[in-house]
């Protein structure tokens, strides 16, 4: 009985902590670019909002649908497009970071069968403080209205 109470208390505490954390961090506008036939690499995009009062850092993303997901960034420097791997993305308090075409994005190898419009792909975001966020990203053709 005492053990049960303690377990329940721990679970409640954990839930409260989670809820507070989840309230401080949310993701919207997630989508995966439909793979053009023959494409070997794909990109996904989303916006991370930090509604809390301390910086939060996205360190990795995984998905059961992809072998790996990399944090990437496209940059045009002197007219030349570069793509680079980034270790982490920090979101300032009360700020947001948009992963969008031509900037930060998630890069994954195209799985077999490749994602098609209509599919929803689970993505799990891992933050430096151990927090994780689960989102479902619909597959879209770039250029489609969201």
């Amino acid at each position, binding site marked *: 009985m005492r053990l049960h109470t303690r377990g329940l208390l721990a679970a409640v505490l954990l839930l409260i902590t989670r809820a507070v954390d989840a309230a401080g961090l949310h993701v919207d506008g997630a989508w995966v670019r439909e793979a*053009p036939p023959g494409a*070997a*690499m794909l990109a996904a995009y989303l916006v991370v909002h930090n509604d809390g009062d301390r910086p939060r850092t996205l360190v990795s993303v995984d998905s059961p649908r992809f072998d790996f997901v990399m944090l990437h960034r496209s940059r*045009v420097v002197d007219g030349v497009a570069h*793509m680079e791997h980034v270790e982490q993305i920090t979101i300032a308090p009360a700020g947001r970071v948009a992963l969008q*075409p031509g900037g930060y994005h998630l890069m994954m190898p195209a799985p077999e069968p490749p994602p098609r419009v209509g599919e929803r792909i689970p993505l799990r975001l891992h933050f430096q403080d151990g927090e994780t966020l689960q989102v479902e990203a619909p597959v879209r053709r770039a250029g489609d209205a969201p």
Partner: protein
Amino acid sequence: MHGHRRQAGRSEIWWIIPGVVIAALAWHFYPVSEPAAPPTLQKATLLPQPRAIADFHLVDHHGRTLNLARLRGHWSLLFFGYTHCPDVCPTTLQTLATTLKRLDAVPTKPELPQVIFISVDPDRDTPERLAAYVPYFDTRMLGATGKHQELEHLARQVGIVYARSRAGKDGNYLVDHSAAIVLFDPDGRLHAVFGAPHDPATLAADLQAIQRHYQDTRR
């Protein structure tokens, strides 16, 4: 004294007549001989003089030769990239596809450009791969690639640079490449350059302004 002055006045009148004729002729031919004012462009950079380039030899996604002759007779938009590029390249190709659709919808029916995606990664992008990849965006778009030497020969002439960058997590290498779109005129000369970032409305508007200016200057 007075008579002499009158005589001088009369000879001046005789000079006025050919002057008026020349002025009339100049006025008549002025709109043809004087180039029209350069078009107002939102984004594109017009070359001061369209630049002729040396012939090149690539292979399109149908396996046919793509050379300078195939750029003549219509406007062409060229974009250089590679299919392993997940972000900038599909984004730009989608922008070009949307630009074509915007031009389709223009009531004055502007001349549609030929849109060519040139892969600077011929080791992975075969014509077959490009045949699957490029028409996905718009079936009117063409993919092409070629030997490294030929690609460099063309790229250098149109101010495009590219280079292999370090390998990714799975051993895949990346290719840094110019993000610009280059425009060839129907004479097969480099005519304008569109710098990144690209958007369909600006591309469509600038292209039409350039086409009108080109027509005006050769009337």
